[in-house]
């Protein structure tokens, strides 16, 4: 198993200790770890299990159940393309093919230069403005291939 740098290990330890008194804290703890480190490292699992008095299997089971929790370090920017029906009706599949070509990666991959991670997402609640894309928590609607290129042009979305 990978080992965590001591600083990150301390972050995990502190988050779990801070939140352990809350009712049903595990998802809260994992969210906080991902917010701090960008993902939930495998080496965080035994630390969280110990602090929350759970088995490693229980923590691992929760981390792997939820699509939102990442188990590898993400790129500098996370690009999520909605693949659900409303966006499909407005060309989400073609946009996804374009995005794969443009970024040179498939879904669930991170570009070799570490700039982008590409993820499918199933509904961003922007279904009257399809197709929808989210980049680093920012939502974009009616995204054409041209607009997509502009959004990722500088490696960072426009504000």
């Amino acid at each position, binding site marked *: 198993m990978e080992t965590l740098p001591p600083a990150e290990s301390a972050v995990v330890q502190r988050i779990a200790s801070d939140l352990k008194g809350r009712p049903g804290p595990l998802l809260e703890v994992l*969210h906080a770890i991902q917010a701090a480190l960008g993902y939930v490292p495998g080496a965080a699992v035994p630390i969280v299990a110990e602090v929350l008095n759970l088995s490693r299997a229980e923590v691992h089971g929760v981390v792997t159940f*939820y699509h939102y929790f990442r188990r590898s370090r993400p790129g500098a920017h996370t690009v999520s393309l909605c693949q659900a029906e409303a966006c499909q009706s*407005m060309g989400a599949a073609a946009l996804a093919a374009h995005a794969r070509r443009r970024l040179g990666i498939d879904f669930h991959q991170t570009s070799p230069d570490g700039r982008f991670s590409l993820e499918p997402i199933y509904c961003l609640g922007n279904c009257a*403005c399809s197709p929808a894309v989210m980049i680093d928590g920012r939502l974009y609607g009616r995204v054409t291939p041209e607009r997509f290129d502009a959004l990722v042009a500088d490696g960072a979305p426009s504000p």
Partner: protein
Amino acid sequence: MTTLVYVPGDAGALSLGAGEVARAIAEEAARRRAAVKVVRNGSRGAYWLEPLIEVLTPRGRLAYGPVTTADVAGLFEADFLNGGSHALSLGATEAIPWLKGQQRLTFERVGIIDPTSVADYVKHGGYQGLTRALSMEPAAIVQEITTSGLRGRGGAAFPTGIKWKTVLDQPAGQKYVTCNADEGDSGTFSDRMLMEGDPLALIEGMTIAGVAVGATQGYIYLRAEYPHALRALRTAIAAAHQARYLGSDVAGAGKRFDLEVRVGAGAYICGEETSMLESLEGRRGEVRVRPPLPAVKGLFGQPTIVNNVVTLASVPWILQHGAQAYANFGMGKSRGTLPIQLAGNIRRGGLVERAFGLTLRELLYDYGGGTATGKPIRAVQVGGPLGAYIPASQFDTAVDYEALAGIGAMLGHGGIVVFDDSVDMARMARYAMEFCAIESCGKCTPCRIGSTRGVEVIDRILAGVDGERNVRLLEELCETMVQGSLCGLGGMAPFPVQSALRHFREDFRGRVK
């Protein structure tokens, strides 16, 4: 004198540039030394006009849209701050025909008020429902909800009053009110709009529920895909605490109610109520076997209300205006109004709140104006990824729980996704199975294995391999999943497949060699 300019802070409007427009207006106003206050309201729901900005004038609120940053200087030149005429003028917002014909009860304040302001909320009728509820016996509050005919707007359409009564009738002790804000159905965004545009309505509804059944703690289970709604809810909860509408002494009536938002983690299944409770407890979102019902043994084993956002946000209106006033809207056993969402390939998409009973055709053509691509509508999917595909021959069906069930469809959460004639229905059927395979919690076999086998069988049909036989096999597989699955995911994922086979069989037969 300072002029109020409304620029939506709604995620959908932001996705079309409303944030940049708000900044441009503030900058241009500063440059011209014009006294302008920009209010970030919710969206009116006319997404085809977003970013739709409004100016408060002596003639009321006047609308302009869709506005881009390139239009801002021109709007100032046209003196829009005094309602000046401009190419983007839409006149009085209330008079826009698309909005004017709507019957907004639950969404009465969305797009109108500043969602962060308790004072604005109260000025527009907020907290009158809670005030009335606090003067009533708990059983009378529950009876009011029962009489209103309100049914669960999340999709299952279970009578809300009956659910509340079950919780009320449990022995005193720790009880919970939970709000299912895991709006994961494609084509739906009413929960998101409400939480961003009028979060205090949800907070008030949950507070009333707590008072009614004797619960002191509420949780909102919000999906992770809604960061804007999370910020709106957290801001509103803090404001409600500050104004003493939440906390140890709600509205000075000596009752406690606390509220917390918990964020999901991208699991569609957590929209199923028992799976949501598992997730709230910090576990894998695996479905529980019922009974016991959550109303008897729910969150942390205690009696728990689980209601959807729109259900709970409808409660303040019902308490404020009375059960009968609400029940006067609607048809048959579908009482009140439904915020319907027009989505996908539609020219004028957005939120239409109307009493139950209008037809799909009125929605798709009168409101929607047909497809965005200008091609004929071939199919609509109503009720999310587990909802049936409906062909044009059935567009005269009324939006009503029973009427849609009568044609083998379901209303669900009120989302309507429109497809033009380029859609390949065999591919959409494949997607329904694929989605189920991705999102299955894995607890029961028909859903976990059946969905994967479903993708494989449809792939063979698409490849033209032994088509007739594989279509029959697919039909049998659907039946097994419908009959044998533990919850609605596996139990309803076949609905889009079966309806595609029933109404669009040519898309499958085309592959048969």
